[in-house]
Structure formats: C-alpha cells, structure tokens
C-alpha cells in the first residue's frame, strides 16, 4: 500500500510538482500528466491506484477525463479545483469523482484525503461483503451495531456510547434530517428541553473523529436552522 501509484493531473506544472513532492514524502509513487489526454495515456501505461485531477485544463478538461476513466476503471479520483461553489462540487461528484478538494488546499488535508481514499479502495473487498445485517456502510464509514464498533476507511475509531448511538441513529436513516430534540428523544430517551447545545457538542466531537476536515464535513452535516443528517453517499 505504501508503494501505491498516484497520478497527478494539472496543467500548472508547479502545482503538479509540489503535489508530487508532498506525496513522495509520504512514500507514494507519483506520475504527472498536464492535461486530460495525457492522463488517459498515463493510466493505460502504468500502475496507478489513485488520480488527483484538476478541472480547468487544455485539450481535455478534468470532468470529461473523469467521465472517460469511469467508463472502464473504478479507481479513486479526487478532483482538485479552484471552483469552490457547492454546485461545482456536486457536478464533480456526479461525474464519478470520489472526493472534491478546492484550491488553494491545505497540503496536510490533501494528503489525509489521499490516504483515506486509498485505504477505502484497498479495503473494497471487505467493504463489499456487508452481507451482515448488523453492519451499516456509508462511504468510508462502517458501523457494526452488534460489536458497537466504527471503522473509518478501515481504521478503528473509538466513540463514546452516546456518540455511537447518535451516529447509529443517523446512519440508519441516512439522508434524513433530524432536529436536536428528535435526536435527544431517541438517544437519551428523555424529554428534550433546551438540548440544542448538548446535541451540537456531541455532533462536533463525532465530526472530529470521523471527518478529515471537521469544518467541511463529508458525512455528518448540519442543516442550518433545521437539524442534522448523515449524507447518503
């Protein structure tokens, strides 16, 4: 796993070079391509387990290249883009990308995301047989309701009892929004009375444990003015 091959696609050679250095420090084998077409060529020739893809590039742009790659390959693709709108993110993910990182990125965060995607990819075998009805899998999260265990990208994460119950409740109803009162009612089994802060604090702790960047969560999201939900991925 440490020698996984990563393809960095960016028309800006300095950025591509910097990412190359960053990842090489982590022990990855890095190849570079400067547009979509080169990326497709490089993919054919070499051993590549993950792609970092810029969007705005000459000849073939990143989104089209992603779409093209998805026709034949299932490897993780992380889009790297200067476009930061929600709509751009949704578009990128709907094209088949696994993650979306906006430029300028935090180098440490980028590395963490790469690692996360790689672990998930490598563990795909394990994740695939969620035949066990006691397990709930969403993205890189794997929750075992019997063993009371949570794995994030294959790695064990320790949660307190209440944190686990909240996450379990939300993951069972992924995509649905629940108010703090509702969550309190279900988890604490008590009448909710000014519980917003209690629930919020728990949510924040859970985020810190399961999200790469708790400020921009991938899984556990706040629906402002309404409640909380686990994104259905």
């Amino acid at each position, binding site marked *: 796993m440490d020698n996984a091959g990563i393809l960095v696609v960016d028309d800006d050679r300095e950025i591509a070079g910097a990412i190359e250095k960053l990842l090489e420090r982590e022990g990855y084998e890095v190849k570079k391509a400067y547009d979509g077409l080169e990326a497709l060529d490089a993919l054919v020739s070499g051993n590549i387990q993950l792609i970092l893809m810029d969007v705005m590039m000459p000849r073939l742009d990143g989104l089209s290249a992603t779409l093209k790659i998805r026709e034949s390959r299932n490897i993780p693709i992380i889009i790297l883009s*200067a476009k930061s709108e929600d709509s751009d993110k949704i578009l990128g993910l709907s094209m088949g990308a696994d993650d979306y990182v906006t430029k*300028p990125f935090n180098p440490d965060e980028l590395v963490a995301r790469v690692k996360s995607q790689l672990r998930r990819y490598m563990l795909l075998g394990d994740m695939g047989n969620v035949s066990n009805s006691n397990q709930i899998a969403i993205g890189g999260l794997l929750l075992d309701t019997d063993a009371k265990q949570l794995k994030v990208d294959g790695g064990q994460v320790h949660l307190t009892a209440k944190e686990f119950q909240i996450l379990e409740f939300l993951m069972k109803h992924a995509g649905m929004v629940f108010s703090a009162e509702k969550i309190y009612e279900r988890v604490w089994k008590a009448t909710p009375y000014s519980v917003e802060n209690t629930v919020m604090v728990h949510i*924040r702790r859970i985020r810190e444990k399961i999200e790469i960047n708790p400020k921009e969560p991938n899984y556990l999201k706040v629906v402002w*003015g309404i409640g909380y939900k686990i994104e259905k991925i």
Partner: protein
Amino acid sequence: MAFVIVVLSLAAVVVQIQYAEYMNGNVESLIVDRYINSEEFYYGQVQNGLYRVSRAIEEGKEVEGEPDYIYFAADKEKTFGNTKWSEREFYEQYDQTFYYLENGDWKAGENANPPRQYTLVDNTEAIAYVAFTDEYMARKQLEWEENRAVLKPLALRMALGVSLALLLIAYLIWATGREPDDKELHLAKIDAIYSDVLLALFLPVIGAWVISIGEFAFSRNRLFDGLGMNEVFSMSVTGGATVVAVSLCGILFLSLVRKLKSGKLLKHSFIFVAFAASYDFFKSLFDGRRFKGNTHTQSLFKRQWAFIVASASMVFMTFMFLFSGVLPLVVLPPALEMLIIYWYIKGNNKTFVEINKGFDESLGEQMKAERMKIALVTNVSHDLKTPLTSMISYVDLLSKEEDLSIVARDYVGILSEKTNRLKNIVSDLFDLAKSSSGDISMEMEMLDIKKLIEQTMGDMDDEIGKSGIEVKTRLPQEPVMILSDGKKLYRVLQNVLDNALKYSLEGSRIYLELEDRDGKAVTIVKNTASYEMNFTEEEILQRFNRGDKARTSEGSGLGLSIAESFTRVCGGELKVSVDGDLFKVAISFPLS
C-alpha cells in the same frame, strides 16, 4: 408689542366713539364756535320752525306743542301766536334770529341767516313773524360750549389713537417677516394658508364684530345723558369684541403683507394653485410630454390623437350629410373611417414591433453584461487561486525541510501565516463578489432561526471558550420560522459573532437576542468594543474597512461586508449601529 398697542388704541377709539354717542354729543360743536351759526340750529330749529308756522297758517290753527321760538301769524280771517305781541318791532328786536313772511315768501331779518329752502305758502296775504329770544339763544350757546368741553378731550384721544395706530401699522407692515439679525424674509406658520382663504377669513371676523356691537352697544335705550351701569357694561363688551376682532384682522392682514412682500401673494392662493394644477393636469393629457425622448411611445400618442380627431370628424360629417339630405353621400364617412382604422392599427402594430425589438435588445445587452461580469469574477478568482496554490504548497514543503537554519525557519513561518491570510482574503473576496453580483445559487427553505442561532453557538463553542468572553443569549421559547438559506445565514451569524469576539473588551459580555418585532424576526448582537470606534455605521460595512485601523488581526476585513451582502441575498436586512462603545448589529427577516 407694536401689535398690541395698535389693537388697544383702535379698541379705545371705538369705545370713545360709543361714549360720545352716549353723551349725546354733537361733533359740530367742535368746529363751529357759536350755536347760532351751526347747522344744527339752522336745520333743526329755524327751518323746522318756519315749516311748522307755514303749516299752521295753511291749516288755520296754532303750532302744536310748545315751540322753542316766539311767533305771530295772521291772515284775513284770524291771528295766532305764542306771545301777546303782534307788532313786528317786538320780534324784530332779536335781529339775529328774526324771520318774517311776506307775499308768501319767508325772509330773514337784517342780521339773520337767510332761509334757504322753504317758500311754500299759498296764502300771499298772510303775515308772520318768527324769532328766537336772546335768553333761549344764550342758554343754547351755553349747552353748546359744555358739549364742546366734553367732546374736545374725546376727540383728541381719538385722533391720538388713530394716528398712533396708523403709525404703528405702517411700522408693522415694514417690520413684519423681518428679524433683527438678517435680511431674509421669515414667513410664519399662518402664511402657509392660501391668500384667498386668509382674505375670506376677514368676513366672518368683521361680521361677528358688527353683530356683537349691534347686539350690545346701540340697542340700549338711552335714558340719561350720563353713563349708567348698562352703558359701562356695553362699552366693555364693545371694547373686548373690538380687541378680538382687531387682533384677528391684524394677524390676517400682516400675514397677507408678508406674503405680498415675499412675492407669493397671488401665487400662493387656493384659486391660483387649483387653476395651475388643473391646467397642468389637462395639459399633461394632451401635450404628450410624458413620452418626450421616447420616439416610439410619442408616435403612438400622436397617432392616437390623430385617430380620435379624424374619427370625430367622420361622425360629424355623417350627421351633416344626414341632415342636409344628401343621402347617397352618407356612406362616404364610414368608408373613410374604415381606412382610418386600418391606418391606425397598422401604424400601431409597427410601433409595437419596434418597441419590442428595442426592449429585447436592451435585455440582451444587460444579460451579456451580467454574464461578462460573472465570467470576470470567475476568471480573476481562478487566476488568483492558482499561484496561491503553488505558494502554499511550496511553503509547506519548505517548512518540512529538516536542514533549515533557525532564521530560515522563522521566515518560512511568516510566509506560511501570510499565504494563509491571503487565501482567506481571496476566498472572502470571491464570496462577496458573487453575492453582490447576485450570481449565487440560493437554497431557500423554511427554517427556525432560533435553532440556527443555537447551532451556530454550538459550532463556535471552542472559539467562544477560548476568547474568554461570555455570550449571553435571550431567545424565545417557540421556534421562529423564516424563509432563508440556512448555510448562508449561518455564515452571517458566524461572521457577526466572530467580529464581536475579536473586538470585544476583555471581560465584557456579548448579548445575543432574538425577538419578534412588528412581524419581523430580529436578531441583535451587542458587544462592548475594546477600542474607540471612530467610524460611522456606513464605513464599517464598506469593503475592507476594519474596526481597528491598525489591521493587526488575521481576518480579511470583509466579514461584516459578507454578512451584510449574504443577509441581503437571503431576503433580510443587516444594520449596524454604534453608540459610544456599544457596537450593535441587527439582522431582521420577515416572519413566515
């Protein structure tokens, strides 16, 4: 002051006149020294006496009552008189008041004033002598002089009053509307009343005065020549009524004077204004000025008038032909009318098409400009972010190099800090540009702003804890539902709270309140600033303005601008107010 004097002196004059009336005074006594020469004596006594003696001769009986004069009359049949004397010499001794009848004609004695009017005796043979005795005349002269003695001071006072009033009125006319300090003309509140209304107000005032004087003053029976209780009472009523009437008239009059001086007397009258407004209204209907500068609508307007005039003349022609009996010609106007209608519709349609074309064009231009602006924002943002990405990445790589000198590590630390700050600024700038250009995707939904505040507080728990500043909340029990974009509204609250935390005085508190105010959900964040806020409410919301001019902290300085802009695109309103050291942000949304 002058005004009061005028009022009082005029009232005094009126009262004096009334007083004079009560005293039975005869004004003539002021001018004519001797009673004998007065009109009163001449008409009241002489002419009257001669007339009555003449009547007595004609009717053949004595003068009724007790006349003031002595007389003797005789004709062929009888003689009568009120003395025992029938000789002419007796009467003639009162030479200044002696009159005699001769040949049906009255003549005056040698030194008497000649009679002027009465020559009406048919009986030419009759003789008569009339005279006023010296005793009588002396008594009358005495009365005459007494009368003058009473009237003289009265007249003097009246003259004084009138001339004083006139003088002061002249002064008031000159002085009204002026103030000692400047040359400007100052108008009073009453001057806002239209001139003609002011003028009309004189009528009821003067009317009321006349009626009240008529009621109280001259209806009294004059029993004595002196002053009784009744008279004194009536005089004070008259005086009071006059004071009121003169005051009111004076106010009205001075207002008119001020308006005249300011040159607005005529223009600022109800009639003038009403005429001008209706004239303008009708003119605006016909002159097409509203369409000035718009060739298309102007041509529509003109065509409309041409159509109306032409159609009306067609109707007129039809009736003319009908009544003049040229029946075959009656078909002509309807036929022409068809042509006119055709011309009207065709012309209008053409203009409408042109208007639409122009409208579409300008809409297209506007869209194009909008798209260009958005493209510019996107491109500039991309062009800023790309080099920034390289900078951040290489600074990070550099910081991870192991064999850096201490100095170099120090420098890299600064570089890292500054590139991060630059990143924040670029990101904020981009958000602001997007939201203020209106090109921002919105997800409006019904949400509970009370809950959103609580969530934001929970989210910022760490920052609040670290700052050492307490946030006191006062939120309602019930949910407060509004229609907004939750994510952006969170950003708004976050920025506002961030700002409050950053600039609050150490150990002070931040107050966060939510209340329903006139159908609006108003969120108020108040804090005590840690520095002197020498800026205005407008300045702080302008881009890149920061509370502290030193610009020491790590923010972009766009926090409040973004909050304001985001609030606006979410359909709310953000207002900042500064009161001493109190900084207050109020965010209001219409309640749903």
